């Protein structure tokens, strides 16, 4: 029966019917071809990039174990403002409020980052600040601060000193962190070294060449461990960038562009108000103004000056000291260029109120390195926040270095032209990024923090974990104190970076091109 039905059907369905029924099946063949072509192109792309760059995706460095066997180090903190809070966090103490606010969230990257820190086996032995509120805050962090293991510090012995000289005279203190405004750095570092303390000092090192030489010679003679607060060297993308430059993947680099792009009052160092417009605390009753002024000209108490000191040349070297210094240090870590041959700086106060600042809001600096055959061009604006990146321009490729590192092939590069033509590389898209995934910031990360993170000034990834680079920088300093060796931003590097900053500042102030005399070791 089945047999006969089949015969029946085949008779009734004509060849033409079968054609009509299956006419569209060749489309599947076209699709398969299309799909395999796409897959093959993707495969080749991956292979080409891996083969030709000789870079692997492993992290450059791996963190050591959670155990810290060193003996307890007793730290004194001189200057307990906002930057010191970040440094104290790096030491392993945060306020219970900070900790609990993040612990309540479903996930918090800043807390996760904090928990990724090792216990550094340190104690905050003493704090010193001219402002009662800041000193109190430091004492509280030392006493009750929550550590990365989730336990409170429980340190009853922490002392407050009213003068930093008294803190330095305390024999029980092994090392000090200096996070005062810039104009105190040199004198305090010299006094601290002379008192036999190891020093971690925030940038900028000094406002003048004379001070810089004094610090240099004092530290050099002492044998004590010094670290300048240029934490960028700890960023994984910077280490990867160095590898990329050394492997000549970019071709000959002749121009490096670095930028600052900000557009808020706080970003322009107007910082005496909270973002909601309310005044920040502080008055003559709570701030020792005489001591704050130190050796600078006597002026009446000003809360604006207290919080916004960076705007005035009596207290700082302006954008050169505040932000160019980071860029110079970062680029120096990658290129290893030393002191520039010559520097030209220009700019002016074109947006903010001229009567409220010395610091320019538009600032351009060209640093020349004729021996190495490249220029560094720094451009800053405090009136526009369009991100212009930090770019190393080579004959074959450009490298953008921020939190992530991106490589773009140059369309005219002889090295990459064939790969561009065959579509394996598109000049408008990075052909290599590191790390692969962007860093995540949580909802409570503030806009300024986000700015710093995007510029790569705060976070890095080690072994797939978000790590605070200031923590790595502090940890390196402590490791060298305990085990010997040398810090990344030791006094020699600090000296070179600071000379470049002082050259830019001098050029801006004196409105002329300045040069470095390597024999006299002097800016001329």
């Amino acid at each position, binding site marked *: 029966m089945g047999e006969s039905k089949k015969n*029946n*059907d085949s008779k*009734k*369905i004509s060849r033409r*019917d*079968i054609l*009509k*029924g*299956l*006419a*569209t*099946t060749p*489309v*599947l063949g076209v*699709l398969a071809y*299309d*799909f395999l072509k*796409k*897959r093959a192109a993707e495969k080749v792309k991956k292979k080409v990039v891996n083969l030709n760059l000789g870079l692997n995706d492993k992290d450059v460095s791996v963190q050591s174990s959670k155990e810290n066997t060193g003996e307890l180090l007793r730290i004194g903190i001189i200057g307990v403002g906002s930057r010191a809070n970040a440094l104290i966090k790096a030491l392993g103490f945060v306020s219970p409020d900070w900790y609990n606010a993040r612990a309540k969230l479903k996930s918090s990257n800043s807390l996760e980052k904090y928990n990724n820190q090792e216990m550094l086996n340190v104690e905050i032995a003493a704090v010193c600040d001219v402002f009662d509120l800041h000193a109190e805050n430091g004492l509280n962090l030392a006493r009750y601060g929550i550590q990365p293991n989730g336990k409170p510090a429980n340190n009853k012995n922490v002392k407050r000193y009213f003068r930093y000289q008294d803190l330095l005279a305390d024999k029980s203190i092994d090392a000090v962190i200096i996070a005062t405004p810039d104009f105190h750095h040199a004198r305090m570092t010299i006094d601290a070294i002379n008192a036999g303390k190891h020093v971690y000092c925030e940038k900028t090192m000094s406002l003048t060449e004379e001070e810089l030489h004094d610090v240099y010679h004092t530290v050099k003679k002492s044998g004590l461990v010094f670290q300048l607060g240029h934490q960028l060297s700890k960023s994984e993308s910077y280490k990867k960038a160095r590898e990329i430059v050394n492997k000549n993947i970019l071709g000959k680099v002749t121009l490096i562009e670095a930028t600052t792009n900000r557009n808020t009052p706080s970003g322009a160092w107007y910082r005496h108000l909270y973002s909601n417009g309310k005044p920040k605390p502080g008055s003559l009753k709570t701030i020792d103004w005489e001591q704050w002024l130190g050796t600078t000209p006597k002026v009446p108490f000003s809360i604006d000056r207290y919080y916004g000191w960076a705007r005035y040349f009596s207290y700082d070297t302006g954008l050169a000291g505040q932000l160019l210094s980071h860029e110079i240090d970062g680029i120096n870590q990658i290129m290893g260029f030393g002191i520039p041959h010559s520097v030209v700086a220009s700019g002016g106060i074109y947006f903010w109120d001229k009567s409220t600042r010395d610091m320019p809001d538009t600032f351009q600096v060209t640093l020349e390195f004729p021996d190495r055959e490249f220029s560094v061009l720094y451009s800053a604006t405090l009136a526009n926040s369009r991100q212009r990146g930090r770019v190393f321009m080579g004959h074959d490729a450009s490298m953008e270095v921020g939190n992530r590192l991106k490589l773009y092939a140059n369309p005219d590069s002889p090295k990459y032209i064939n790969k561009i033509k065959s579509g394996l590389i598109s000049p408008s898209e990075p052909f290599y990024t590191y790390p692969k995934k962007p860093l995540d910031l949580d909802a409570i990360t503030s806009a300024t923090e986000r700015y710093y993170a995007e510029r790569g000034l705060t976070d890095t990834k080690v072994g797939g974990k978000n790590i605070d680079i200031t923590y790595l920088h502090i940890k390196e300093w402590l490791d060298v104190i305990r085990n010997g060796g040398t810090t990344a931003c030791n006094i020699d590097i600090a000296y070179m970076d600071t000379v470049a900053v002082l050259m830019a500042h001098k050029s801006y102030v004196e409105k002329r091109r300045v040069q470095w005399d390597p024999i006299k070791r002097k800016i001329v």
Partner: protein
Amino acid sequence: MTHKFLFTKPQITLLLLLRLIVGYHFLFEGIDKLFTPNWTAAPFLLQANWVFSNIFHWLTGNTAVLSVINFLNIWGQILIGLSLILGLFSTSAAIFGALMMLSYYIAVPPFLSASTFVDKNLFELFSFLIIALFPTSDIIGIDFLMKKLKGDEDG
């Protein structure tokens, strides 16, 4: 069901091409997802921003639910694509396709971010509706062969 008498030859050709193009797109997307290691619908679902966003977000919260969604997406697209290209159960497939497009559309409707409500998803949604209401698979496709077989049996 004698649609072929309602359409002129150019009409049939254009409707057939529309069916093939939409089918091609779906099959390609489905296979691409199938061969992408660890492909998941989660990033798309998390983008959901309209009134149903809570439902879409909830779908990502549970791994079991999410893997069902991933499976339905991948195999839904592959089967609908195959069905349109081969002309097999094309009308039902086009209705399911329209439903899938509707869910993509309401997850991230364009009028929240742009000034218009028209986007590619809406075009594909309406393409599916046209394919469902103006079927060509019983003229060109396996549906035609099946009908022929069935018709002969009945006869």
